């Protein structure tokens, strides 16, 4: 396949999905739809977290366990840097301890 065809294909599939949600251009929606859309972020974050846990690969146990202190720190102090620091530190320490994954 010509690499240009590859790139154009990717551009089309990426941009079409990205622009689709904006097609309504700020028009008002029925309350139910508003409630649905308002709850998308929290649902999206939960899904993305689970995807990031990568349950199919080795080390998933470590990822889940290390997420607990990170989540507590995030809940209490709400700072990104702190959550990342605690999370990665826990992840590396548990990994170094050679916990089964």
């Amino acid at each position, binding site marked *: *396949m010509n*690499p*240009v*065809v*590859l*790139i154009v*294909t*990717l*551009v089309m*599939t*990426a*941009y*079409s*999905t*990205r*622009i*689709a*949600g*904006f097609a*309504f*251009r*700020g028009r008002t*929606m029925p309350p*139910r739809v508003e*409630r*649905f*859309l*308002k*709850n*998308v*972020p*929290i*649902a*999206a*974050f*939960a*899904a*993305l*977290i*689970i*995807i*990031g846990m990568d349950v199919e690969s080795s*080390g998933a146990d470590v*990822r889940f366990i*290390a*997420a607990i202190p*990170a*989540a507590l720190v*995030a*809940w209490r102090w*709400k*700072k*990104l*840097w702190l*959550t*990342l620091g605690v*999370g*990665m530190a826990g*992840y*590396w320490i548990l990994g170094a301890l050679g916990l089964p994954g």
Partner: protein
Amino acid sequence: MESTSGYRAVLREGVVDAAPLMLAIAPFATAMAVAAHSAGLRAVETVAMSIFVFAGAAQMAAISLYAGGAGVVAIGLTTLLINLRHIIYGLSLDRVLPKRTQPSRPVLAFLLIDEAFGFTASRIHRIQRPDAYFVGVALGIYIPFVLFTAVGAGFAAAIPDIERFGLEYIFPLAFISFIAPMLINVQRVAIALVSGGLVLLLPRFIDSGLAILLAMAGGALVGMLWEDDQ
């Protein structure tokens, strides 16, 4: 933290807030570029892909398929499925953006990535100019993404097996930092559990890209119906 109303100041805030993610973007983009090199893509083609597509997961999948000799239909369908979740991001974001955004919505759409959506959605109540913040976060990721693609593509032959120290774990950690303060009542926790549960279960039965979209929609649906009951 006080938010300022100046566009540039808010944009800068977005760039600064997204800066920690560079630790994960750099190894990811470099590794992806090295994979592209192995797949037979030239450096200029790999970099062009990052510049014009800006979709890490889809690019990675496309490169793997390309390396395996897949055709344009297979690659197109796979990447379309992977990108489906952007529709729901766009719908959710559209309503909290001002009627006229700077830049225009079609330009903002190009920058729609998980993290830009995530940062903006989690801070929407504190920002005066969500469009500026969104652009800041997106650019804060786009520039390193393209740069490190170039590094990986340019030096692919010289880069050994990339030990990423598991830095990709930064992505779910970032989303944990967004979600944790939101889990303030049972309803919110239920939404998260439904969505998380669905994304674990559904990929066994259906394509994972579709599963992600349905999981997010399912969680949001629970939120919609729950409030309905009251």
